[in-house]
């Protein structure tokens, strides 16, 4: 895995920069485009981690569906969702919050605890779509089936909320 350090590093850098852009840029349309780039860079990162199928999923589901959905909705919002610039206090608080979270997560990664050395990654994991299918319909069958419930909730919820309107004023 070590020889992939450079491409991985580039993908990581792009992912971080685009994510930063999503957070910082004020116009929602730009945000959505940056999110698209972010998602693509992640797909590249997944390819580098031998997760080909997930990378394809990321491109088709995420970039293709979710981000485009975001784009559509941005156009429906009043004033295309323009927002006032954040005050200095808010920026400071947000940065502080982000820094605390970063510290809390990074610290256990950098200072590994426990006894012994962590096992090394296998040189070639030999992932295949067939293996993924065996996982989906084998040990992970229950959560996989449950996504049906989740999507069902999302569909009903989306439709119902879109149609949400007050009853006739006669009531």
């Amino acid at each position: 895995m070590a020889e992939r350090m450079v491409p991985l590093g580039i993908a990581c850098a792009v992912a971080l920069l685009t994510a930063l852009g999503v957070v910082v840029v004020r116009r929602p349309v730009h945000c959505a485009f940056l999110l698209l780039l972010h998602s693509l860079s992640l797909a590249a990162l997944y390819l580098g981690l031998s997760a080909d199928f997930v990378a394809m999923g990321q491109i088709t589901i995420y970039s293709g569906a979710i981000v485009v959905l975001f784009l559509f909705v941005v156009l429906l919002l009043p004033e295309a969702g323009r927002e006032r610039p954040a005050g200095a206090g808010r920026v400071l608080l947000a940065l502080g919050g982000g820094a605390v979270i970063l510290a809390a997560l990074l610290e256990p990664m950098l200072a590994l605890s426990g006894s012994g050395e962590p096992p090394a990654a296998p040189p070639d994991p030999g992932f295949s779509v067939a293996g993924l299918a065996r996982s989906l319909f084998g040990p992970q069958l229950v959560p996989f089936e449950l996504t049906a419930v989740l999507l069902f909730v999302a569909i009903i919820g989306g439709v119902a909320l879109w149609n949400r309107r007050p009853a006739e004023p006669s009531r």
Partner: protein
Amino acid sequence: MHWFLDMPHSLQAAAILSLFAVAVLLSAPRASVATVHRLTLLAPIAAALPALFQRGPEAFAVLAVLALALIGALLLCTDALENPIHRVECGALLLLGTAGACVLATANNLLSILIGFESMSLAVAVMTGLGRGPRTLEVAFKFFALGAASVATMIYGIGLVAYAAGSFEIGAAPLAGLTGLHQAGLLLITLGITYELALVPIHFGTLGVYFAAPMSFAGFAMTVSKLGAALAVARLAAAHPHVQPMLVGLGVLSITWATFGGLAQRHLRGLLAYSAVGHGGFLALSIGCGTDGRTAAVFYAIVYVASAALVAAALAGRDGDLPYAELRTEPLGKLRTTALVTGLLSLSGVPPSPGFWAKLAVLGPSWHVAGPLLTCIAVLGGVFGALYYLRPVPDLIAGLRSGERGTAASRSAGVAIALAGGVTVLFLVLPYLALRLAN
């Protein structure tokens, strides 16, 4: 049929509930409202059938969740929605959310827990958004946003655990050298789930739902979600003792917070909201206190959800904040007042009420595990909590004599009151029965 019988109980229930949800949706264009209600009510009963013939904690957990869902479905029939059309959607969502809760309550796979949690939480968000008035949408969005943040936290935690343990099983031990990451991951997962327990400082979203959602959904969030989340957290804490101190700390913090917050309330909605935080705190405290503590927690959870369901049933169909002053001018009917007073007494934990036995059961393990100081704080928080629970009680009982002017309970709410009240009174007389169930 073999494949169906071989499935876990929770999945059987989820499958039946989903089928009924489809049926509810399909029946909508032609059938009457009554048919929709009937289907919604039938679903939890039908889903309970497979588990009825089984024994063991899993079947019991599923049954408990389904019983609460039945009460929720009964209350749905009486609640005011933004538009009556939404009854169909809310019925289906209630069933699907219950399916998620069943899985959450019993699953041993982190991914199942995640998906179950998210189904339940999204269903509550949408149902809240469909309630009457502008406040419900606002609350629903806040609940959703905070919930999404905690789900993201949970996913990150699952990633860390998978990295450190190489498995999604709840009990998987960390590999060499990765204990720190594993622990961090588990803490994140636990914190994510405790969102539904409404523990301070991640209680804001759920608090809003208790404040403003229609009573049936607030009741659903207080009972079904809470039971599911409590059981999931209990399993996590059993497998990984190092999350227990965190639960103890957050529990005591929540109890104290809820007591102070509750003292400032002058309406029933606020009372119920802070009460949910406080009881979430007691549940967490108890879960964090070893094996005895977890047994006590299950006991406590059963008693709490029964009492909360009773209160929700008594208040079903009443809009607004329900300020105490209004209770005197517009009294509830006799049945509803009795149910409400019983429920409030039980929630407050003053004797004679099952809530009192439950609190007693929690304090023993807490003293031995959490230590005297924290237990003292919890006890004081608990007993002073009675001050805010009992504040409306004199008015409520005084309102009884003008009961003929009060609004009587609808038939379905009456059945719900009977169910929840029956369980509450049963535990009042025979507390050890609940413990036996808990075991």
